[in-house]
């Protein structure tokens, strides 16, 4: 039988989605290329090599760029992280 989510779960999911939307928009506005590369990886499963070709950067610089993407995601998505992982 199909599970119907509890009302609390639905509200929480909407809050999470809205929070992500706000954080992501700020990320896109402040650091568009890092946010964009993250979305490329998630949506198209790009490899390091494809990202390097897209950015026109060396493999080492691409690794550094991806590392920066992770750090910036942590910064700009902090509120969403807290809501998703810390507040149960």
């Amino acid at each position, binding site marked *: 039988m199909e599970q119907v989510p509890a009302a609390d779960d639905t509200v929480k999911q909407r809050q*999470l*989605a809205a929070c*992500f*939307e706000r954080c*992501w928009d700020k990320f*896109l*506005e402040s*650091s*568009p*290329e*890092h946010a*964009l590369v*993250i*979305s*490329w*990886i*998630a*949506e*198209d*499963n*790009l*490899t*390091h090599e*494809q990202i390097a*070709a*897209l*950015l*026109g*950067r*060396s*493999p*080492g*610089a691409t*690794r*550094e*760029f*991806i*590392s*920066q993407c*992770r750090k910036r*995601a*942590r910064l700009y*998505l902090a509120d*969403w*992280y807290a809501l*998703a*992982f810390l507040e149960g």
Partner: protein
Amino acid sequence: MRDEDDIWFDSLAGGKADEPQEAAGTARAIRAAILSRLAAEESPVFGQNGQRESELIDRARAAGLLPAARTTRYRRLPAYLAAAVIAGLAVTVTLQMRTESPAPVIRGSHSGIARIHDEHPKELQQQLIREFKSVGVQARGYESFGRPGVDADLPIPLPSAVREILARHGITPPKDNVLQLEIDTATP
């Protein structure tokens, strides 16, 4: 050996769903949120730049820079961001076709990027690329907001010839031998 960035990257790309690390968990959550957002969104109507976007995307794909399913992401960007990204993409595509060496990337000064000053940054950029090439190191030129830059993955251990080039230009040998250098215009 895989580090946390690799684990994060692999999970963001949808691989290995059972990895227990925190980096994997947060990456999977980001991936889910992005894909959920993508599914929920309706593609807004292309604005005036729509035709231009399509042309650039087609050119990028023809140049092998973009995988097949690339178009929708540009539509989701606000117009001003799309314009900025597309402008960067246009520079990338144009220069890639001519020199195989460009790409505008936003970068902060706190991330291992060396900065030097010169009265003629573009000339110095090309000179550095030539000098590195002369000692067997492939260096790539790029441009970030009008500031020329040079990327090079230097050999380990650092050969004396490379060390001499760095010293000649006042560049500190980079951490992990990944050189990321940007050249500012020297103020008189």
